[in-house]
């Protein structure tokens, strides 16, 4: 590992970077509504019913109808809430979720119209740390949302969310460190290139499982969705939100799911690489990555339909007493194997 590892990528012209940012954001923005309807259709199938099927063909227009419904609602807030923080919180949530998306590589460097363009937002030398930095900030979206609502349910949800995010972030990070040690680089494109021989799913299987479990907690998905446990907390930290701020929180949540799926795809499933030495042309790469991400998202939905929600003390003790020691052990074993 020489210091040349840190010299990542190259500098593109500024207009290419702006176009890339717009394209990635637009694509993610377009995928999100489809994702919501996909989740509900799939949940319906798991529960032996149809799911939404009234608006448009196969119910595909359902998100459109919902957005119109939410956007035309009267904006309101509780009298006990703190106005400007109440408005800022969903913005922080969205901002951090979208910023983390910039790191997910959708393909290798391509030659488009004579320009070298990397099919990713940015490729930073600090790699996954960037994602964790924004995950750390996204906590304040939840916290402010819960605190400024001036409601006990919101506040309880926010506190739970804080404790849960912190507890599982450690395991998630340690699981990724195993991959970083094996690849010898922090750059996400570098990690994908290092997986040419074998996807890290196989040598780092334990890390993969730990990352997956921790990701359920990080994205507040069932069975770790205690932040918004609707049986106990009405709606968690966004209980008091309605209309577009509510959509903003939902948007951030689904975006986090996409980001986690993207990171898992990159770190463990070989990013845009295909198995058995198939080398498709460069424009196929993003579709490969999106297909792999859909596998993860389908798994997330499957688990949501299958497993019941944990109790809060179970969540905490599982995170600290089972997941964290396993992640540390995985890291130690990986380090010993790599060095020896």
């Amino acid at each position, binding site marked *: *590992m*020489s*210091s*040349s*590892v*840190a*010299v990542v990528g190259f500098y593109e012209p500024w207009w290419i970077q702006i176009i890339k940012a717009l394209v990635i954001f637009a694509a993610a923005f377009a995928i999100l509504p489809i994702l919501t309807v996909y989740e509900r259709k799939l949940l319906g199938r798991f529960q032996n019913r149809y799911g939404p099927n009234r608006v448009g063909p196969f119910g595909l227009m359902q998100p459109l109808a919902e957005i119109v419904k939410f956007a035309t609602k009267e904006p309101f807030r509780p009298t006990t809430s703190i106005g400007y923080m109440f408005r800022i919180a969903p913005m922080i949530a969205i901002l951090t979720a979208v910023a983390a998306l910039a790191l997910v590589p959708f393909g290798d460097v391509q030659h488009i119209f004579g320009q070298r363009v990397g099919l990713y937002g940015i490729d*930073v*030398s*600090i*790699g996954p*740390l*960037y994602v*964790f*930095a924004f*995950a*750390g*900030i996204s*906590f*304040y979206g939840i*916290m*402010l949302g819960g*605190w400024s609502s001036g409601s006990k349910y919101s*506040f309880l949800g926010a*506190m739970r969310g*804080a*404790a849960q995010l*912190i507890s599982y*972030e450690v395991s998630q990070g340690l699981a990724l460190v195993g991959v970083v040690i094996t690849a010898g680089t*922090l750059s996400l494109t570098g990690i994908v290139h290092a997986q040419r021989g074998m996807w890290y799913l196989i040598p780092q299987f334990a890390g993969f499982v730990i990352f997956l479990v921790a990701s359920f907690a990080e994205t507040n998905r069932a069975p770790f969705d205690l932040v918004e446990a609707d049986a106990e907390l009405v709606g968690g930290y966004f209980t008091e939100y309605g209309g577009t701020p509510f959509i903003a929180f939902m948007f951030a949540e689904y975006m986090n799911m996409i980001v986690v799926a993207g990171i898992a795809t990159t770190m463990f499933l070989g990013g845009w690489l295909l198995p058995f030495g198939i080398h498709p042309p460069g424009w196929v790469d993003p579709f490969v990555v999106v297909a792999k991400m859909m596998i993860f998202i389908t798994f997330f939905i499957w688990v949501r339909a299958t497993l*019941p929600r*944990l*109790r809060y*003390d*179970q969540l905490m*003790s*599982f995170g600290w*007493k*089972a997941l964290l*020691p*396993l992640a540390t052990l995985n890291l130690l074993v990986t380090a010993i194997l790599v060095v020896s």
Partner: protein
Amino acid sequence: MSSVVFFVAAIGVLAGAIGVVVLANPFYSVLALVAHLISLAALFLLLRAEFVAAAQVVVYAGAVMVLYVFVVAYVGGQDQPVRSSGPGLRLIAALFGAALLCELWIAVIGSSLKSLTEHGAPYTPGFGSPSQIGQLLLTRFLEPFEVASFLLLVAAVGAVILARRRRGLGDEDEERLPGFPAISVAEVLSGRVPTGSMAEAAGLGYEVGESAAGTRRQARGGW
């Protein structure tokens, strides 16, 4: 471009710092410090300290400030008077701060640090990257690294001892609620994890203890 970013970030840093000092509610002080830290990370990035900037945000904003938020929520975030015990102390503090600033100012602008007016050493690729920091930490600065890790251990143990409940509930009860067994690795692996569902409480699954047994008796008699 970089000077615009610098001024925006510097204004954020200073505004956050002033906010910490003057805001009455501790919760707002914590939030001001978070804004300060994030702006500071931007300054670090301008100084090509990528790893330190990321570590700053992850460790400070992501973990330390969250601890603050918890403690403020626990202790109570009501407004408290900013005023110190006497106007005299306040004046003296302001004078002391101003004197300190003058001294630092003289040190910077005056005699010894003239080379600072330049733009610094030429940037070499890999400066401040994780690999360089890691190499330095594990070679030249191995002893400080080890001592720091030991310090962290001491702090963790100290915090546990300080924040422990001394009266009321005993040690055993503090670990877990009575009647709710703690989860263990073996249980997780063997699938005997209590799920807290109604079926369990009715005795169909894992034995949950006294309270659940009561529910079970009720269920038998009632329905």
